[in-house]
């Protein structure tokens, strides 16, 4: 990190602890300029990472990130913070593995403790067909040098003793896909770390700044209109989630996206007992325990598209039933809160990244239920795409043109529930 911001360190923590002085703000507020080289719409992990890598890897000095709310208020702050790379297609595995590689050194790179805990990720199989898909996934993973293995009941019992492994339940556990490099991270810290590091490199972060129109002249982007003034720019990146169709529509670009809420919930904190991420595709649930001791539960997306972020009672009831089928010992736990985030689903459960038919208008959207774990690699790849004018090989399979060409990247088998 350059020297415009003082570094965080154990020494500074001690000094602030003893002196009781306030910490300086992690990033600055700027007036909106009337011109930027790149405007990124969406101040979540994707938009902030793109801005950071544009400045750090490619020397861009005039980049703005616009968000209509606050930084990390969308999917970046609503996900269940699980990281993994055990996908089904070689394109998917390579891509998410690069993301895990970046996440591993992110705390040092950003000088911000992102609390990545590589505790292992366990996807349970309750029937023969999921076991078969897991074997397939394990083999694809191993070919790409990703640590991933199908394990049996004894090993599952050793990893998670609280699971009900008996045979006389509705969905008995037959085996599991074990992925040791997976884990959980502090999602807000990732957002704040990228924001602070991007700010230090001169990126302007504009919160409370809604884009109301995108100017396109002769098939080229020329600027954006916002609630805080007009900006002229040759490059606009749509890095929104939940609003990607609406923002793309401002530039006249049609997307194969539908928006659905995904609900999650968290319990009261208890003593640590679960040091693995446990996922069940059949029961539509995933569980992990945070450093504070709360259990975080996630599910699959709601059964029909909607922009509503209200939680529902039937979700909480269904979730509790499924969790108790897996771990009956949790029956006395109380839920503290539940919430919903918006997921932009694509037909093949893979993202849409890269250029569009409108010159200068780029997409980093369609991240469904798997966007958070891809933040760093998406930012790195989008920055390279914009800076070089060419689509990096790592994301070439994820272009918008794949739908018209009929070359989809089918990830439903590995992305649909198990995150």
């Amino acid at each position, binding site marked *: 990190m350059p020297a415009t911001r003082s570094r965080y360190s154990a020494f500074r923590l001690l000094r602030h602890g003893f002196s009781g002085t306030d910490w300086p703000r992690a990033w600055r507020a700027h007036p909106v300029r009337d011109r930027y080289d790149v405007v990124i719409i969406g101040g979540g992990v994707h938009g902030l990472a793109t801005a950071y890598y544009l400045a750090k890897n490619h020397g861009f000095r005039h980049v703005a990130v616009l968000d209509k709310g606050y930084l990390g208020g969308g999917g970046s702050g609503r996900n269940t913070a699980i990281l993994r790379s055990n996908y089904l297609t070689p394109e998917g595995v390579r891509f998410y593995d690069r993301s895990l590689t970046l996440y591993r050194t992110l705390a040092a790179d950003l000088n911000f403790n992102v609390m990545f805990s590589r505790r292992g990720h366990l996807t349970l199989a309750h029937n023969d067909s999921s076991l078969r898909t897991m074997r397939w996934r394990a083999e694809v993973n191993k070919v790409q040098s990703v640590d991933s293995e199908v394990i049996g009941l004894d090993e599952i019992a050793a990893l998670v003793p609280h699971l009900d492994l008996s045979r006389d339940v509705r969905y008995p556990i037959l085996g599991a896909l074990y992925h040791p490099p997976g884990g959980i991270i502090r999602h807000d810290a990732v957002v704040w770390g990228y924001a602070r590091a991007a700010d230090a490199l001169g990126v302007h972060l504009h919160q409370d700044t809604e884009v109301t129109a995108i100017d396109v002249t002769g098939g080229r982007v020329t600027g954006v209109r916002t609630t805080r003034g007009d900006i002229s720019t040759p490059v606009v990146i749509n890095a929104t989630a939940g*609003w990607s*169709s*609406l923002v793309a529509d401002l530039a006249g670009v*049609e*997307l*194969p*996206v*539908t*928006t659905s809420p995904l609900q999650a919930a968290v319990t009261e904190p208890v003593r640590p007992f679960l040091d693995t991420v446990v996922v069940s595709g059949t029961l539509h649930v995933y569980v992990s325990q945070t450093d504070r001791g709360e259990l975080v539960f996630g599910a699959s997306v709601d*059964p*029909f*598209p*909607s*922009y*509503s972020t209200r939680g*529902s*009672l*039937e979700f909480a009831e269904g979730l509790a039933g499924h969790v108790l089928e897996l771990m009956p010992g949790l029956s006395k736990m109380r839920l503290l809160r539940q919430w919903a985030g918006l997921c932009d689903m694509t*037909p093949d459960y893979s993202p849409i990244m890269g250029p569009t038919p409108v010159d200068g208008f780029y997409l980093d959207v369609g991240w469904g239920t798997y966007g958070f774990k891809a933040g760093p690699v998406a930012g790195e790849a989008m920055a390279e795409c914009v800076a070089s004018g060419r689509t990096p090989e790592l994301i070439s399979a994820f272009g918008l043109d794949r*739908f*018209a060409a*009929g070359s989809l990247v089918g990830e439903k088998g590995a992305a649909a529930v198990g995150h």
Partner: protein
Amino acid sequence: MIQLPCPWCGPRDVTEFSHSGEVTPRPDPATATPTQWRRYLYVRRNPRGVVEETWYHVAGCRRFFRIRRDTESNEVRA
């Protein structure tokens, strides 16, 4: 939980239905180009507001029917 007005069974809980998707104009399969056909298959308006969509009463009379729903409030307008 929201309810949907099934034209045969009357208002029922949404969990009885399966969402078939937004109504999109279907090109003639005999003359459509692959590009036009894939646009029909994949591209959606996905509006934040009122959308016309098809539902299937899978746990009831098994009828397909169309409604208009506000995707922000989930309020249904017949």
